[in-house]
Each structure stands twice: as C-alpha cells, then as structure tokens.
C-alpha cells in the first residue's frame, strides 16, 4: 500500500468496512443482497442457513472451519474441497437460491433438472 499502489484504496476499504469475502461469509451475504435482501436481513438469513451467529459471519477463523465442514469453498485451494463452480453449486443448494452459471452447467452436463430430455 505504498505510493502508486493501485490496490491501496481497495485494501483500505477491506480493512475498514469489508466482511472479508470468501475468507468469511461476505460472498454469501452478497449473494443474498443480489436477491434484494438488505444487509441485516441477508446476514440473518445466511447465519440461519449456516447454523452460526451473525457475529460469526465476519470471523475468518470461525468461518474457515465452517466453510471447510460445509464444503462451500475457502480462500485457499485445499485438495479434496470444492472450488469454483463446485463450490458455487453447493452454495446455491445451501442458500436455496438460483445461480445462473450453475443452472447452465447442470443443463449442459445433464446433471440437473434443467437438462434437455
């Protein structure tokens, strides 16, 4: 974060007000916001689905364990754990939401309900 660092502003935001993205439950809360839930409602919804408290959602230590146990993707690739679209598909099931890219994958691979006959 020195002179000329293009990431300087982003890092300041991350430390000052960010939930932490995939390090915590920030990505999950963001997905519920895309379903028109405001922040507090989205946090409550995600916390209930994960079986943790709202405060735990921003705790990277707690959420690392929770994410590993639920196999919904962690910030570093771990052999055997879901990543990319695998994690996305599991997140869609866990949060009971529709994710377009996951639906397309299911349709194209014949793995889901959207598959052509």
């Amino acid at each position, binding site marked *: 974060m020195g002179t000329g660092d293009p990431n300087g502003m982003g890092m300041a*935001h991350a430390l000052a*007000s960010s939930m932490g993205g995939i390090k915590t439950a920030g990505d999950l809360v963001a997905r519920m916001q895309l379903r*028109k839930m405001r922040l507090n409602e*989205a946090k409550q919804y995600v916390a209930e689905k994960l079986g943790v408290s709202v405060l735990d959602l921003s705790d990277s230590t707690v959420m690392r364990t929770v994410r590993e146990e639920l196999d919904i993707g962690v910030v570093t690739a771990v052999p055997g754990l879901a990543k990319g679209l695998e994690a996305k598909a599991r997140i869609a099931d866990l949060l009971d939401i529709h994710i377009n890219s996951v639906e397309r994958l299911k349709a194209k691979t014949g793995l889901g309900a959207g598959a052509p006959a």
Partner: protein
Amino acid sequence: MFAETGADAINYDTVASTGDAEFLATLRATRTISSETDMPVEVSMAAEMVLGFHGELEYEGTRLAGLWPHQQMKLVERAGAAIFGPVVNNNSKKSCAWNVARAATFVKACTAEATIPIHPNVGNGVGGVPMFEVSPLDMVSRASAAMIEIGKADGL
C-alpha cells in the same frame, strides 16, 4: 444473451454519465432484464445529479433531469433492480471531513427509505474519498467506515 451464457448478474456502472436519456435507457433495460430473466441487476450512478441534456424525459411520470440520489433510488427500485449505487461528488475546495459528512448525508437519505441494498460509490472523487492518484489511506478508511456506520450502507 448474457442469461444464456451463464452470467450470474448484470452491473450497470456509471449510469447517466451522458444524462437523462441514458438513465432512461438503463431503467428500461433493468425492467426488461428483471421481468424476463432471473438475473439480478445492479445500477450504479456516474454522478450525484442526473444531467438534463434532453430535459423532458420521464420514467413512469417522473422527470429524470435533476434527480438526486434518494430520488434516483425510487425509480431504480421500481424498475426492478436488486442493488442501487448512489454517487455523491466531492467538492475539491472543501476539506475531507466536509466531503465525507456531505456524502454520508446523501447516502443516509437513500438507506432510510430503500427496500433494496444500497452500495454507494466510494472512490476517487466520490463518496468522500479525495480526488488524487494515490489515495490517502487514512481518509479512505474514514470514508469507508462512515458510509457503513453513519450512512447505513449495505455495501460499497
């Protein structure tokens, strides 16, 4: 097309940078996408006020020229967007504290009445962050925290 390629959502950024006609086009596109597909739409503005290059354009009976963030938010909500990103411009003649206070006031007016998440733009020259190629981090972090804790923003 985006829905068929597997896009998860659409983000319209710097909306109304060319004025009221562009804002109208975005609202119409948002309505179509929201009603015909399952994709969420985020609408983020380019500046705090919609400029009236045309001047008489309306969306559902509301004239677009001259709308401020809390008024823009109402139309964006009605169009079916999932997230609204208001912009508050900085006044470079004023202090950082003055600009953050002004930006948080505008954002609070949005969040007080919004039914959808509000993600204000907090970057170079907007949202209380000074217009400078190397952002002073003490000011960025203050603006960032103020937007969440005082402005009650749902994200940035």
